[in-house]
């Protein structure tokens, strides 16, 4: 069971915000060694060849884990099914949240299977840890974690089809080739479709994965090309795909009103009045657990539930709901106070925890030129467009109770045992039907809405219920991106090179767990650790009881902004070209990417140098720009992606900022689906630009912004051009849902400085008098 434990604890770490450190280890370590993987051939009514490449559990562990689904009619539980009519179905194990994973998974499998793309259908798999291992969408890890497995699954199925054809034709397998879902024997001009061979192949023993030869990259026919998303036809015709679209016979609708000051309890509510309203079946108090911060573990917050016959009846009844809140347990957090406290703490020379120190930074800073900068960034909301929702059906049965759920989660692997715990069932009594997710951005790595739906379904007494959150619920009860503050001191030597780095972060500590807030804190190995000898990273902690959680490129999305902005302050103070300044720092470790520890694990100085040079070259760095346009560059490494971006910006007299173009150079290893990859990068740039203008602020434990009118995300006007260049390196591929985000914000702010001489040190930029066009 070792593999499972490792993977699960990885996922927990991921959610706890440690992903930047763990992600890179995972790319190597979490993939079970090939020898421990094996094919399982599954016979069943589906017909044809059904081949599962186990997720890495040894067979004995599989037997002890959840019982496998009944084999007939067998469909889920396998990676690939080749039907006798030639239709090839891949069961995609991870949630689709808009990162395009269903399509990318299909492409990887089809490549090694040598299938014709139009024969391939991709379906969401069931949620079953025994068959699929860890199932989640986060950390841009779906691609790195499944790259080998899917290629082997494709190659394994192909090998069986080849063997079946060779046997039928009485020719050696070595003379048989494949192409476009067809097996060919050139010498005798014979060919057979995969469909026609599927039954014969199913009778053969599956190959040992170790014996499979995977394709050379130069022979790829599909990987790297453009594919439109496999769900796109359903999307443009309005088919039900999302959690919010679930409709079950007899289904009832539920809302759960929670205290606006997070963590408050219900003192009393006008339940009798509510129960009499039209369309209302029930209203009751949910005791829940008032501790708000770790919604992951605490499951259900206190509140008042209303159950009715449709969405509008419960939304309307809610307007009549009067709750007396007991706020003794509620958050009293205040952003205004945090800002004041942080300023004070930043000027104190003592009391902070040293996270990492090398050399003698104080001494180094006492000579040469010193630069200081104090940065502030606010909390932001995920604001995924589909509000939280979840459908659940608790059934009592003679053989024990069961819970069936339709879950739009990013982390079903954790949601399932959580839901089971909430209703007092064992995980094997709970079934999840994973739904397409209308935006994740990390919010749905937390399963609080899943826990709530499970709880309400049990209380509803045998009927399916759909829990609906309003947008206000969503923004009041988000697991926000944590805000923070950074006080930097940097040193420059006589040559104007970086000589010392002192980073003091003022961040947050969860009042309940006493842990550093998720995605807050300064990692011990944050860049430029190990690139500059005299280095210190420290932090001071302010108590926080608002829930915070992973938000697209957790930690990295803010750390990139402070570090890369301050690097620009240093290169500016040194009167050096910024690109040249950065290249000198990375050049200190050039050629020794394996030297451990080289700063953030996985950060490869040569790959960094490569993308910085490429972005500069493609953007025309240092060359004349249209009048009033200015460049800013930033590099950041996260989620195994090395990405440099150059922003081309103009700022008008009223301090309105226009981002005309973002030039992106990305080294993420091989690109799987070029269309999907570009879409993610374009989206990351838009999101990063948008987020420069956004914040949510809490006062007295309540978020002040509860709908989009107070949270003005970007719309279509002035969408920047994105000029994207991939370095198709031979490193293993990584996902692209996140790593293009972190460099974009600081690149834009560095360009604003170039345009105006004003350094943006506070986000949102509106705090410094700027607006976004």
């Amino acid at each position, binding site marked *: 069971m070792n593999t499972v434990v490792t993977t699960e604890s990885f996922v927990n770490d991921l959610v706890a915000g440690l992903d930047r450190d763990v992600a890179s280890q995972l790319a190597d370590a979490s993939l079970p060694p090939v020898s421990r993987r094996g094919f399982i051939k599954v016979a069943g009514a589906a017909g044809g060849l059904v081949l599962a490449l186990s997720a890495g559990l040894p067979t004995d562990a599989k037997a002890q884990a959840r019982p496998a689904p009944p084999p007939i009619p067998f469909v889920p539980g396998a990676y690939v099914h080749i039907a006798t009519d030639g239709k090839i179905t891949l069961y995609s194990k991870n949630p689709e*949240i*808009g*990162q*395009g994973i269903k399509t990318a998974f299909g492409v990887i499998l089809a490549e090694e299977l040598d299938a014709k793309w139009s024969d391939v259908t991709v379906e969401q798999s069931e949620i079953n840890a025994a068959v699929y291992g860890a199932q989640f969408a986060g950390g841009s890890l779906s691609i790195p974690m499944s790259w080998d497995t899917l290629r082997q699954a494709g190659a394994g199925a192909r090998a069986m089809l080849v063997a079946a054809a060779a046997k039928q034709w009485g020719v050696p397998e070595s003379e048989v080739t494949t192409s476009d879902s067809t097996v060919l024997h050139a010498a005798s001009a014979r060919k057979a479709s995969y469909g026609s061979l599927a039954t014969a192949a199913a009778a053969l023993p599956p190959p040992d994965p170790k014996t499979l030869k995977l394709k050379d990259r130069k022979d790829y026919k599909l990987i790297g090309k*453009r*594919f*439109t*998303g496999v*769900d*796109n*036809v359903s*999307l*443009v*015709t*309005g*088919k*039900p*795909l*999302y959690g*919010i*679209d679930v*409709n079950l016979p007899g289904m009832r*609708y539920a809302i759960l009103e929670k205290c606006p000051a997070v963590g408050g309890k219900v003192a009393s509510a006008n339940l009798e009045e509510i129960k009499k309203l*039209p*369309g209302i079946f029930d209203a009751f108090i949910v005791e829940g657990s008032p501790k708000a911060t770790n919604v992951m573990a605490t499951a259900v917050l206190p509140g008042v539930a209303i159950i009715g016959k*449709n*969405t*509008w*009846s419960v939304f*309307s009844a809610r307007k009549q709901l009067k709750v007396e809140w007991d706020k003794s347990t509620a958050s009293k957090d205040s952003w205004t106070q945090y800002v004041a406290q942080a300023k004070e703490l930043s000027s104190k020379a003592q009391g902070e925890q040293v996270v990492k120190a090398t050399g003698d930074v104080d001494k180094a800073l006492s000579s040469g030129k010193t630069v200081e900068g104090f940065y502030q960034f606010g909390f932001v909301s995920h604001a*995924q*467009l*589909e*509000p939280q929702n979840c459908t659940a059906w608790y059934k009592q049965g003679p053989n024990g109770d069961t819970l069936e759920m339709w879950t739009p989660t990013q982390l079903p692997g954790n949601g399932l045992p959580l839901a089971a715990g909430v209703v007092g069932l064992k995980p094997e009594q709970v079934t999840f039907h994973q739904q*397409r997710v*209308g*935006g994740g*951005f990390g919010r749905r790595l937390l399963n609080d809405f899943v826990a709530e739906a499970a709880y309400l379904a049990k209380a509803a007494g045998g009927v399916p219920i759909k829990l609906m959150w*309003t*947008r206000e619920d969503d923004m009041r009860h988000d697991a926000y991106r944590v805000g923070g503050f950074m006080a930097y001191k940097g040193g420059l030597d006589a040559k104007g090179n970086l000589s010392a780095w002192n980073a003091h972060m003022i961040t947050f500590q969860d009042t309940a767990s006493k842990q550093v807030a998720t995605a807050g804190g300064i990692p011990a190995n944050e860049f430029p650790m190990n690139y500059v000898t005299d280095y210190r990273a420290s932090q001071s902690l302010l108590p926080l009881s608002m829930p915070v959680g992973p938000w697209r490129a957790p930690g990295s999305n803010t750390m990139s902004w402070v570090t890369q902005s301050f690097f620009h302050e240093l290169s500016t103070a040194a009167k050096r070209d910024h690109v040249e300044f950065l290249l000198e720092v990375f050049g200190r470790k050039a050629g020794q990417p394996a030297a451990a520890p080289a700063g953030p694990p996985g950060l490869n100085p040569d790959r960094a140098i490569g993308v910085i040079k490429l972005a500069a070259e493609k953007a025309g760095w240092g060359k004349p720009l249209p009048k009033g346009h200015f460049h800013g560059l930033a590099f950041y490494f996260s989620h195994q992606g090395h990405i440099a971006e150059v922003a081309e910006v103009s700022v008008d007299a009223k301090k309105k900022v226009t981002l005309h173009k973002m030039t992106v150079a990305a080294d993420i290893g091989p690109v799987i689906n070029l*269309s*999907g990859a570009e*879409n993610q990068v*374009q*989206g*990351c*740039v*838009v999101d990063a630009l948008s987020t420069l203008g956004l914040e949510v602020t809490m006062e007295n434990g309540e978020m002040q912004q509860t*709908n*989009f*009118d107070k949270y003005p*995300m*970007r*719309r*279509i*006007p*002035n*969408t920047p*051009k*994105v000029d994207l260049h991939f370095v198709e390196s031979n490193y293993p591929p990584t996902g692209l849902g996140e790593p293009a985000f972190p460099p974009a914000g600081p690149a834009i702010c560095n360009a604003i400085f170039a345009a105006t001489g004003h350094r943006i040190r506070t986000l949102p930029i509106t705090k410094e008098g700027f607006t976004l066009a």
Partner: protein
Amino acid sequence: MLRLNVNGHEHAIEDVADDTPLLWVLRDELKLVGTKFGCGIAQCGACTVHLNGQPIRSCQMPVSAVGSGKITTVEGLAAGETLTALQKAWIEHDVPQCGYCQSGQLMSATALLAANKNPTDAQIDQFMAGNLCRCGTYVRIRKAIHSAAQAVKGNA
């Protein structure tokens, strides 16, 4: 009882409150779930449908106010299996990421092309600004609208 004309079909709707927004009648009663809920306050456009060919925010339209007006939802765009030029362009340019906003985007874009066969970038910006895409697929939305406009012109 209420009568509603949606996608060319007459529906009899029993027992919904008069103030129920059209959005929830479509989704909960008629099970036409292509029209989405995003904000409930006319900010996001995820709930966009057509009333007599005009784009409206169905989260703001009480069902009792629809009367005999003709509603079109994303489910009613295609003629059977035949997709519209915009739907085809959306697929060709692989517009969606999470996809949640896209039915609203398509309904707005459809209304735009009905009013203006060859919109400029500025006209697209103006017409489409009410539709939020949290995933930031705007580059592709614009491209797909231009390409559908060209395709329609080519066929005319």
